[in-house]
């Protein structure tokens, strides 16, 4: 009998789409029940959104002032306490889940499985290694709790239309005070969220400067897309870190991905291989990005972007 607990990711008011994708993965287990835990200072609004997802049995709302910010050291003892009632504990493979879930696993004295991309059975999975250059099939032991993260780019968000019961809960766990939240900078943008957007326009080092990178933002706004970037563009300081797509940035799966001035290092390609259609625009016809692109155009991006914007207008 499988009972799954999902740890919700949210910002205090909205449920992050990664949670609904983690739920889709959980539903592939054909488990007896799937519950979602919302840890927050005041999680009513988020719990309501979680309860509206189809396939959820119960939403556990754990309100505590200490849970205002998602500090792994504070959340992990609470998750570990709840885990006693479950066979599986899942989180998204986002910076939130990657920070938290290994700490939970270690408190439980079990290993952790990272980046589930396919569920083959309640304890058999596939996951990528070596920047996606290999995919392994892994069997997990069934005699202990399985703690895992879900590669959210491999899953569609679970649909809404459910009406799960929300239960307020207090968890009896000793919480540390050695870790304190300071501030969160950036992230406020009217543009679509990179991780869940249907369309993404990404720029690379070839843009040459932060000023010229504005061309990417302009095109993205024109077609209602999120903006991404290669590691090189982030390292060069053209755009902030949260726009990085790739092995060590965000792994995304938009319907349309337009890569402009990005050569296509393997570490970047691993972040986009689940995209529906990849468009590559690059002046070097030999760039590796063209090996994976569905539509390629060789040329000068400074000419092409304005032309493309005009043509799409």
């Amino acid at each position, binding site marked *: 009998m499988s009972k799954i607990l999902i740890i919700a990711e949210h910002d205090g008011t909205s449920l992050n789409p990664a949670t609904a994708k983690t739920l889709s993965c959980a539903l592939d287990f054909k488990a007896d029940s799937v519950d979602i835990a919302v840890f927050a200072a005041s999680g009513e609004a988020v719990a309501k959104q979680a309860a509206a997802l189809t396939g959820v049995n119960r939403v556990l709302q754990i309100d505590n002032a200490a849970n205002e910010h998602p500090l792994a050291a504070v959340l992990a003892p609470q998750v570990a306490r709840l885990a006693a009632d479950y066979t599986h504990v899942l989180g998204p493979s986002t910076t939130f889940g990657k920070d938290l879930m290994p700490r939970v696993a*270690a408190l439980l004295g079990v290993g952790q499985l990272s980046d589930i991309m396919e569920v083959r059975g309640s304890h058999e999975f596939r996951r990528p*290694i070596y920047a996606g250059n290999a995919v392994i099939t892994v069997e997990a032991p069934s005699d202990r709790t399985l703690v895992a993260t879900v590669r959210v780019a491999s899953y569609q968000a679970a649909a809404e239309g459910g009406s799960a019961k929300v239960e307020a809960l207090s968890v009896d766990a000793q919480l*540390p005070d050695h870790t304190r939240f300071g501030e969160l900078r950036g992230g406020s943008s009217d543009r679509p969220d990179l991780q869940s957007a249907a369309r993404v326009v990404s720029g690379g080092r070839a843009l040459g400067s932060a000023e010229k990178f504005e061309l990417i933002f302009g095109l993205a706004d024109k077609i209602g897309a999120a903006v991404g970037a290669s590691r090189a563009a982030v390292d060069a300081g053209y755009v902030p*870190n949260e726009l990085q797509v790739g092995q060590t940035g*965000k792994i995304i799966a938009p319907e349309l991905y337009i890569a402009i001035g990005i050569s296509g290092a393997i570490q970047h390609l691993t972040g986009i291989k689940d995209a529906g259609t990849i468009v590559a625009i690059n002046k070097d016809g030999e760039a590796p990005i063209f090996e994976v692109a569905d539509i390629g155009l060789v*040329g000068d991006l400074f000419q092409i972007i304005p032309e493309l914007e005009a043509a799409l207008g």
Partner: protein
Amino acid sequence: MQKIMVAVKRVVDYNVRVRVKPDGSGVVTDGVKMSINPFDEIALEEALRIRERGEAEEVIVVSIGASDCQQQLRTGLAMGADRAILVETGDRLEPLAAAQVLLKLIERESPELVILGKQAIDDDNSQTGQMLAALWDRPQATFASKLELTDGKATVTREVDAGLEVIEVDLPAVVTTDLRLNEPRYVKLPDIMKAKKKPLDTVPLADLGVGTDAQFKITNYAPPEQRQKGIMVEDVAGLVKALKDKGLV
């Protein structure tokens, strides 16, 4: 602070295009260039800079693995670490076991700060630092892009999906590094010569009493599904037409 401990993993060099063996039993590693995991190199660089600023006395670089990990530890010593410890084992350790081993070294050495890479580029797990912090019952500051130390505390800027998060942790603590924390130095030849004289202790894993039984069984390795090469268009008009044909604009 007295000591910083940095854990490094020997991995296939990041420039190598890793291939799966035809029989699905693993990936090809024979004759392949091996290096310090790039994130761990950043971890070591950060520790060295802290020491060079006079905020730490000693940097210890440690690794777990077969005797050939000594190459990576020697590189760490050449970069500037004061001494090295290799926990020697022929077994492949999962992150939980690696964290248990590192905890044993912490108990011996009592560092105030432990820095590791945020993930190793072979297994891409991103677990060991967090697990170590949990077992040690100390704070963790993962995915660090900035690290400042002031009287017994660390202020760490973390690269998170939503932007940059700043947290403050009491020391001792575990920090895991992201790409933009620093740019590691190049090792110069005289440093390599000097590193040969620096102490490198070897501890058999058995002496630490940590079990290495794997919890997860890998039953198959497969190459990823390849995307098919698509079409090339001549100009923007061709691009727009192709997008329209697919119903994307």
